[in-house]
């Protein structure tokens, strides 16, 4: 199954898109070139253009969202990240953003590699499967967790590659990506004191945002 089939049902994983986008925008420098993968109706792109003067563009698989974005005057193209990222030249962007989508793609590693090929930096956000409520439910009930973030049954979830914050650190290490910044937050976007300690963040953070750069 392509990313195309997965992204659309994924949207309701992002309970509070606005919060996620604010956290992401906080990691992006003004006046830079940004590609937002799975940009929806272009909320982040519009935000980055208006508040930071970024040359922000987007790819979105859902044609209704694309039409809405273009009608808002935003540079968004209909496309499939699994296929279309390969057509961009190396280093075409300063940042490539993937918001709450990594856990749903068929080949997360390949998508990350493409992101850090076409962009100098990647901003990746994902819901944290290591959150205490997820762990608790699995431990006590012995069943797949059902939480406000992970709210679909195992047989119909688009989230086929969930990971924890510590898993993601490991992947970055294995792939040779430098983690320049990271943070964990709850669903309301509040950063908590535990956010600088990975193992605590992994227990209490409902979502994480990473800023990556490929090591030379």
């Amino acid at each position, binding site marked *: 199954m392509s990313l195309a089939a997965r992204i659309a049902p994924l949207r309701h994983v992002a309970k509070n898109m606005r919060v996620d986008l604010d956290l992401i925008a906080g990691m992006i420098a003004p006046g830079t070139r940004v590609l937002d993968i799975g940009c929806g109706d272009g909320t982040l792109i519009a935000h980055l253009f208006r508040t930071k003067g970024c*040359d922000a*563009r987007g790819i979105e698989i859902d*044609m209704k969202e*694309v*039409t809405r*974005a*273009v*009608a*808002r*005057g*935003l*540079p*968004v*193209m*209909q*496309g499939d990240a699994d296929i*279309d990222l390969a*057509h*961009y*030249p190396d280093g*075409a962007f300063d940042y490539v953003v993937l918001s709450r989508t990594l856990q749903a793609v068929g080949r997360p590693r390949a998508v990350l590699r493409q992101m850090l090929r076409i962009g100098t930096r990647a901003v990746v956000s994902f819901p944290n499967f290591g959150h205490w409520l997820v762990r608790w439910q699995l431990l006590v009930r012995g069943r797949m967790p059902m939480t406000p973030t992970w709210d679909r049954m195992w047989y119909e979830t688009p989230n086929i590659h969930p990971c924890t914050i510590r898993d993601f650190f490991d992947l970055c290490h294995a792939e040779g990506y430098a983690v320049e910044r990271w943070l964990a937050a709850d669903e309301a976007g509040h950063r908590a004191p535990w956010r600088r300690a990975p193992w605590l963040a992994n227990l209490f953070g409902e979502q994480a945002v990473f800023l990556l750069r490929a090591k030379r």
Partner: protein
Amino acid sequence: MEQVLSPLAIAHQHVVFEEGLALDCGVHLPRLTVAYRTYGRLDAARANAVLVCHALTGDQYVAETHPLTGKPGWWEVLVGPGRAIDTERYFVISANVLGGCMGSSGPRSPRGEEGDGQALWGTDFPPITIRDMVRAQRRLIAHLGIERLFAVIGGSMGGMQVLEWAATYPDAVFAAIPIATAAHHSAQNIAFHEVGRQAIFADPDWQGGRYWQSGRTPARGLAVARMVAHITYLSEQALTRKFGRRVRAGSSVLGPYSDIFEVESYLQHQGSSFVHRFDANSYLAITRAMDYFDLAAEHNDDLASAFAGTKTRFCLVSFSSDWLFPTSESRALVRALNRAAANVSFVEIETDKGHDAFLLDEPDLARALSGFLAGCAEHARLA
């Protein structure tokens, strides 16, 4: 069918470039006439000009009653005051293409000085390319005192011109909107054109292309060409929706020699009304220009290099039921533009109306165009 000659009788607004135009085929056209229309006002900075490029059988009468047919302008649904291409905001220009028959230099135009009587170009008119058409438009734009077009827009062959504008004069195009088009004409498209051309050649009234001398024009051949082409502009779903297998009222005789189905009389009407406004030699010249078009071939077979380093903002539009210029062709263009790291928007509009959808009232098309133009105006700091 004598009215076919009448385009000559109408005075089209035009400009003459006495120095002529060097064509891709190597011939120097001694005298270039470009017929055109404009709508709206050019602003003080000369920054709000939008060039609308017409398709194979279109012309410069984009947003006004056509002087020959009396019908509304071919893009009045999109161009006009308060429309997606708002003539209260933008200065809209449209030129009859080189090779056309609405006043620009073409097979139907006088070979020598104006008013030289019967000495027309006819089949001696040199072969032209889409790039030649664009060069002629470039002359017009310069004549109007415009250095950079805010936007170039067109569907089908008009889209080919948009692509050629962006590739040939990248600094003169701030925004490009190629609609329902492709980087080259496909073998299938060439094949359909060839059927049309053969229909014209097979008409005894074509007379080797010198039909104006006898006053008899190859109207039957041209009508058949139009009928074939018209099928390619529609979709199976649209034909079924409009006509299905409905039989004409009053047709009772079963047989191969009478019109029975509604779709037949519809096509015949399309054919016969077309020959009153179009010249057969122009049709031959322009279909050839479309067939020749291959943007990648003009750039060492690398489509992306046609747009290398471009600053132009692109918006590509395709239609889901268009099988003449299918979405896959637009997507190939989008990928080439991605390889060139260009700024690209791309929408495929859901419709059952086929290729013709770009001429029709498609709300999503209007929304996408007006939104894209508004976004570009913001980036261009257009007042």
